[in-house]
């Protein structure tokens, strides 16, 4: 494994963690959007607030990590992606602003009308942001990003079958993960009604995400042949593992098992991400730019690996502390904003 490959793997770890934690965070917003009105809707949104309140910001730092490692270690790929996919990435950035400020504001405004507005900004952008990010990934995966400054088509690079598919898949996967997490959060919260509510949604989202992923096979076959070939050869074991984890999670959800759903659901998502990574290897931009050709100077790659090592030592334990305190309900919100 070359140094550039090692950095690409570190980048992929960041992508994976963002997909799991950021994805679940977006998914929580998806369920806030569908929570409905009245007392019931209020309680569902309260659980969502309670569950993601302490962790939502940390969940999204992985995106910064991914962007920074990409532009430091693979500058050309970063510049090509960001300039060709200017429109969906600008929309994703807009979504991030509305989502973050909406979430921060909704807890501290007092008038019901303002609160609803902030909640709507949070919930709607929780769906749009991952969708646009998915279209970006679809544009990359289907080889629509050429090397250079805005060399690709500004519109069809992200409005194409693969992009739309992955956009929907991102939203569905996030909703799936979020529902699975919210089931155990509801249990911790001590609310069996909410537990049932989200268990049903988790099942529906599992079937939905699975169906989209299945449909994706045909779309990739038609429109992103390089990735399709990779997924059906080098990536095949991971794809099968993902399917197995997904089915296992489905069975446990169906049987209302108290444990094991979360690791299986996360496993399904992680396996498919690494399957895709294996399929795209050795390309940063499929069939246009290889990892080895797009990598930064050796000294920079070393520096990134060192920083990544420090992050593993410093950030992961801190994140572990945050999630542990959260899971043990040590982090409680004040009764008043």
């Amino acid at each position, binding site marked *: 494994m070359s140094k550039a490959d090692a950095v690409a793997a570190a980048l992929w770890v960041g992508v994976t963690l963002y997909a799991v934690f950021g994805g679940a965070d977006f998914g929580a917003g998806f369920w806030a959007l569908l929570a409905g009105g009245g007392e019931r809707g209020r*309680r569902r949104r309260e659980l969502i607030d309670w569950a993601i*309140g*302490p*962790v939502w*910001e*940390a969940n*999204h*730092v992985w995106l*910064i990590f991914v*962007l*920074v490692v990409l*532009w*430091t*270690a693979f*500058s050309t790929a*970063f*510049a090509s*992606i*960001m*300039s*060709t996919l*200017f429109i969906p*990435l*600008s929309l994703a*950035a*807009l979504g*991030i*602003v509305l989502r*973050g*400020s909406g979430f*921060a504001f909704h807890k*501290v405004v*007092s008038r019901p009308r303002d609160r609803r507005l902030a909640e709507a900004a949070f919930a709607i952008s929780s769906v749009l942001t991952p969708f646009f990010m998915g279209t970006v990934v679809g544009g990359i995966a289907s080889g629509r990003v050429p090397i250079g400054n*805005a060399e690709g088509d*500004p519109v069809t690079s992200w409005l194409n079958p693969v992009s739309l598919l992955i956009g929907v898949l991102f939203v569905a996967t996030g909703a799936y993960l979020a529902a699975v997490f919210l089931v155990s959060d509801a249990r911790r*919260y*001590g*609310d069996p009604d909410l537990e049932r509510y989200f268990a049903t949604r988790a099942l529906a989202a599992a079937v939905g995400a699975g169906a989209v992923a299945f449909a994706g096979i045909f779309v990739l076959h038609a429109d992103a042949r390089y990735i399709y070939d990779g997924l059906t050869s080098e990536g095949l074991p991971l794809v099968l593992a993902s399917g197995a984890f997904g089915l296992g999670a489905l069975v446990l959800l169906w049987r209302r098992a108290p444990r094991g759903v979360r690791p299986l659901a996360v496993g399904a998502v992680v396996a498919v991400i690494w399957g895709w990574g294996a399929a795209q290897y050795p390309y940063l931009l499929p069939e246009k730019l290889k990892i080895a050709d797009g990598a*930064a*100077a050796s*000294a*920079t790659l070393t*520096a*990134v690996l060192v*920083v990544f090592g*420090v*992050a593993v030592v*410093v*950030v992961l334990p*801190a*994140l572990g*502390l945050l999630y542990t*305190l959260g899971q043990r*309900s*040590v*982090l*409680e919100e*004040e*009764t*008043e904003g």
Partner: protein
Amino acid sequence: MGADNLLPLAADLEAARSQMALTLGFHIILASLGVAFPALMLIANYIGLRRKDPVALELAQRWSKVAAVTFAVGAVTGTVLSFEFGLLWPEFTGTFGEVFGTAFAIEGIFFFTEAIFIAIYIFGWKRLSGWGHFWTGVPIVIAGIGGAFSVVAVNSWMNQPDGFKIASDGTVTNVDPLDAIFNRATGYEVPHMILAAYLVTGFLVASVYAVGMLRGRRDRHHRLGLLIPLMVASIATPIQFAVGDTAARSIADDQPVKFAAMECVQETSTHVTEYIFGRCTSDGIKGGIGIPGLDSFLVGWSTDTKVTGLDSVPADERPPANTLLHWCFDLMVGICTALIALGLWLGVSWLRKRDIPRSPWFLRATAVSGLSAIVALECGWIVTEVGRQPWIVYETMRTKDAVTDADGVWASLATVVLVYTALGIVTVLILRAMARRWRTAEIDEADVPYGPRPAPRESSEEPP
């Protein structure tokens, strides 16, 4: 969007520059709060724990709630900036990302640490022990300083690029990330920005309580709320003056053209007059107060010092808007001087009678100090950024060669103007509403920090 193709390229450059200026100028205020506000919060927390002072604890707790809002807005506006590195300046990041990027990777660690511990701190008031909770706040302060270092080191690098060579075919070689981080400008730009963060936050928070006191709310809560931030800022301000003075002299050496534009020095010469304000023309300053020889003296401690003029480089290598630069520089220095005087006023009164000055003029001055400090911050930023033009990487890459070829920058600029205006207004309104609620609300027993631990949620929070 097709119509944009018909406009000259420079038009998109202006849109990109305006968007960067707006988003950065907005973020820099929130970033300053993110760096320094946790320190104020912890000082109040420390006083509260040490002296068993409920008023100080209440201040710390409320400040942490304010920090939660400003940190969230700062986090998203910061995320936008990292998008803009590619969206607006792909040639810059594509060419030099491997040189300056490592500093941002390090910043990632600090940002992570900040996001994690600020969450633990904000949500830890109820169930963590007093000192345990206090210590979860310390990493936020350290990470804030570390993050500021990393980000400003990159800006320093843009002013004094180092740690690479350009080969004959134009590609970047001999990359040394450490040389890039510790470039010539890092030593003065980084402390200047970190001090600015403390200064802005200190005066801004103090000004809120000064307004309250002017309206007759002279309880201990307001007194302490004014004293803690104002003391921190008053200590930072004279240090800032010295650091800024060093920075200006270093810029006269390192980026003489930027310095010439700041001071409107048209021709390289000795015995250069220092002008306070005035309008910069191609014949030098019109109007303004001139002090003969002072500019030379400030650069090299002697009126015989030669100051490089704008004529040292071709016209297309000179910064635009010299009057703006000159005014911004003078305003920054002037405001800093006035703030030092305010700090001295507090210091003298504190030494003599352990109290803030009685005069309502002191409170009035403190009330405007917050906005003044923000003006100084923005002025300094304009001098740094506009003064570096036409370069994005000083004497290496022009800003016009760094900009995206994508269409639609005007549309995104228009969106940014709308969204950021709304975001700024809403943030201020929300913070004001929070303060109003705190003023009118009865103190809720359940809200007292470090109170008896409530029963587990399972039993106390059964749905109705």
